[in-house]
């Protein structure tokens, strides 16, 4: 039987994962790969949560489990009031859960040979929408996502940004309560990414105003995307290493960062008692909550003729502080 989650909980909690584990069997005698390791996470209804981590950190695996595209090896997963994955045997309850779910995977779930309208009609049929209901939903989605003039264009002829908007329209056509976005802006330029995230923010506001809050779980490896969320969950090697509001995560590491391009800066920063790390671009980063130490380091660098800049900590710095690895570096498989 699908276990209906506790009634009072299901009113406030969209996702609750407990000790979730997913391992993939190793091929040709290799040891099994652990994609998720004892992960526990609770997402209240209406919250926008960004899963932040490099490739291989387990973000997509978690989204696949919640989307029912995969099953956990161990642990329990409840979403929208139903137990999903392991323990779910009732097909009707699973269908009810899926009816409230919208998913945008890394590859757009659109058929490139079909037009946007044909894709949306197919999507509508998958969610039991037909006739006038589907026509009205498609017209409304086309207006919402500025696709009216392109509805009869084949998806294969669209730009990346437009195809992503069409994919988002597809995922939201049935008015889901939980939206899962797995690296939804992959391959888009900065403007298209910003526009996509603006749309998500607007959708959430509208849903909240209408009294039907939309919960969003989005995976990303980009700091600026994660900054848009209410909450950032940092992942590393299948585990959660930090969890909180973006400002809280940045604030938790304290102080400021001092960055210099030259490798000669490292010993100077260390001498001034700064926490030193190497950025993905090879630059040297010194971090400290002590203003005097930062000022001393700055004057030492200036004396040595090394250019530098001082900036407030970023989510990337917070990730580095939590894992010892920069965000752009993949997890060890």
């Amino acid at each position, binding site marked *: 039987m699908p276990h209906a989650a506790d009634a009072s909980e299901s009113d406030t909690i969209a996702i609750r994962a407990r000790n979730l584990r997913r391992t993939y069997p190793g091929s040709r005698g290799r040891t099994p790969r652990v994609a998720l390791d004892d992960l526990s996470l609770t997402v209240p209804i209406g919250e926008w949560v960004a899963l932040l981590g490099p490739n291989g950190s387990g973000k997509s695996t978690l989204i696949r489990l919640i*989307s*029912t*595209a995969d*099953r956990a090896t161990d642990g329990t997963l409840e979403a929208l009031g139903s137990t999903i994955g392991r323990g779910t045997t009732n097909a009707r309850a*699973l*269908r*009810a859960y*899926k*009816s409230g*779910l919208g*998913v945008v*995977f*890394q*590859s*757009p*779930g*659109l*058929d*490139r*040979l*079909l037009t946007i309208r*044909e894709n949306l*009609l*197919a*999507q509508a*049929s*998958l*969610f*039991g929408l*037909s006739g006038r209901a589907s026509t009205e939903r498609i017209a409304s989605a086309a207006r919402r996502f500025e696709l009216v003039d392109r509805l009869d264009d*084949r998806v294969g002829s669209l730009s990346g940004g437009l195809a992503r908007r069409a994919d988002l329209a*597809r995922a939201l056509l049935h008015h889901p309560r939980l939206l899962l976005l797995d690296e939804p802006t992959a391959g888009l330029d900065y403007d298209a990414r910003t526009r996509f995230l603006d749309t998500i923010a607007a959708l959430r506001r509208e849903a909240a105003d209408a009294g039907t809050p939309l919960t969003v779980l989005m995976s990303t490896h980009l700091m600026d995307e994660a900054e848009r969320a209410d909450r950032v969950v940092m992942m590393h090697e299948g585990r959660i290493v930090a969890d909180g509001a973006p400002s809280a995560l940045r604030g938790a590491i304290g102080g400021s960062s001092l960055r210099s391009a030259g490798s000669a800066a490292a010993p100077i920063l260390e001498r001034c008692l700064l926490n030193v790390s190497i950025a993905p671009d090879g630059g040297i980063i010194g971090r400290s909550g002590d203003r005097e130490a930062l000022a001393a380091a700055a004057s030492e660098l200036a004396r040595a003729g090394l250019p530098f800049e001082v900036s407030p900590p970023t989510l990337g710095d917070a990730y580095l502080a939590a894992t010892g690895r920069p965000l752009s570096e993949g997890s060890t498989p």
Partner: protein
Amino acid sequence: MSASGIHAFVRLTARELVRFVRQPSRIVATLGTPVLLWLLLGSGFAGSFAPPSGHAATTYAAFLLPGVLTVSVMFTAILGAISLIDDRHAGFLQSVLVSPAPRWAAWGSKLAGASAIATAQAALLLPAAAILGLPAGTLGHLGALAALACVAVGVAGLGLALAWRVDSVQGFHGVMNLLLMPMWLLSGSVFPLEGASGWLRAVMFVNPMTWPTQALHASLAGVFDPIAWGATILFAAAGVALAASTIGSRR
């Protein structure tokens, strides 16, 4: 079987047909290959072929027609099944599987779409039977069409079950060529079952493709062959069962 499930099935089947029409190269390849095979083999063996006693075909081109129809259906049904791998890579399959639509609508639409396209395409070649002097008649033509539909369903089901397990189009082609070409060559399509040597005849006898081909031969000769028909329907049912058991259950 819910109304929404049927609606999803119909919509997804229509998608298969639209996709086929929008890929002209696929139409040319699946129709051109058997016609070319027919022209080359039919002309090459025209002088050396002696029809088996009691067979309706008096020329090799006429004898080869059921085989050409069969191979046309096989090619087209297999290409339809391959589109499952394309759907997986493109992300479309994933969006179907995480939707509340029943799993049978996903595989059923693939099976129905591939089978309908394959049968319709072979039907375009069917009028050649009258031109070649085969005494099929209306009932014979309908019987031939039904036998071709059974081949299409059986092969598409087999192809879908394999495509569900295999991740690359190249791998799929390799396995299918290894399996389907011998099945076709040893089905009585290219040379008659009656003339085959002892061991080869035994192999042809257990080849599941032999019986739909025999049902086709019989139908185009205006004859009803109950044994061939029984095996043909069984072949189609096995294809459906294979697809259902492989894709219908969770991986």
